[in-house]
């Protein structure tokens, strides 16, 4: 099941590399980036899992609005690669990428608690953080 998951999100990796990462590489002074989709689509979401940590890196971006593949992509976004970020608006396509969560965290409410905790310890210097999660994926665990 995990292999299926990885295969399914591959196109999003390409999109992340070819579009989102390239935009930040190319526009060296970009301060605000906003991706608005009328329909949330699984192949145009940002997915940073398994990509090098200098992917989607910026020292100027302060405002980001984007759709991500999983909740843990929020955590990747907040791992220091976007140094100046003060506003983050994120819509997560799914709750978790199961391959990235430790095997023993099978209890779903614990996963939620763990992810929210991980998010909160990273955002203390933020002005605004909005996270929208598609909770229906959450019951799988």
């Amino acid at each position: 099941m995990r292999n299926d998951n990885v295969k399914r999100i591959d196109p999003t990796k390409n999109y992340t590399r070819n579009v989102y990462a390239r935009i930040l590489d190319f526009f060296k002074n970009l301060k605000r980036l906003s991706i608005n989709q009328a329909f949330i689509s699984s192949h145009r979401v940002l997915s940073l899992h398994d990509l090098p940590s200098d992917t989607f890196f910026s020292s100027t971006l302060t405002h980001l609005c984007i759709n991500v593949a999983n909740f843990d992509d929020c955590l990747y976004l907040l791992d220091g690669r976007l140094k100046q970020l003060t506003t983050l608006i994120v819509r997560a396509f799914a709750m978790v990428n199961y391959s990235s969560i430790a095997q023993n965290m099978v209890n779903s409410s614990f996963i939620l608690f763990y992810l929210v905790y991980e998010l909160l310890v990273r955002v203390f210097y933020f002005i605004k953080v909005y996270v929208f999660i598609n909770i229906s994926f959450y019951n799988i665990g």
Partner: protein
Amino acid sequence: MSRSNVHLLDLSDEILLIILKKLDNIDVLYSLLNINNERLNNLVQEKTFSNILNFVSTDDISSIDRCKLDRFCIDILPKIHNNVKCFILEPVSMERILRAADYPNLTELRLFNFKEEIALSYLISKHNIDYMMFYYSFF
């Protein structure tokens, strides 16, 4: 009761500006720049008519037509290129518009239905861009 004989062009510059500001910038430039009227020609070169240019049709019938686009790329954009701060574009016309002139003051790009295959490399004055917005209307 006598009808007033005042024509549009008898109005003061200030009044004309107030009227023109109610219109879409693209329409103002397309209709009044480089026509045989020196006064209108000067008026519509005011920065306010070229700082935000929206080339995405809102009438949802078709994108900007060929002839209009030609006039913008050949005639209009090279005249007002220094004033443009924000472009609202879609794939079909994006490349021509961005290649038509240098835009030293362009800081904001809003792109509709951007496609992965479109190379970003032709974006001129890319170092000035500080705000990008993408809209996707399809799945």
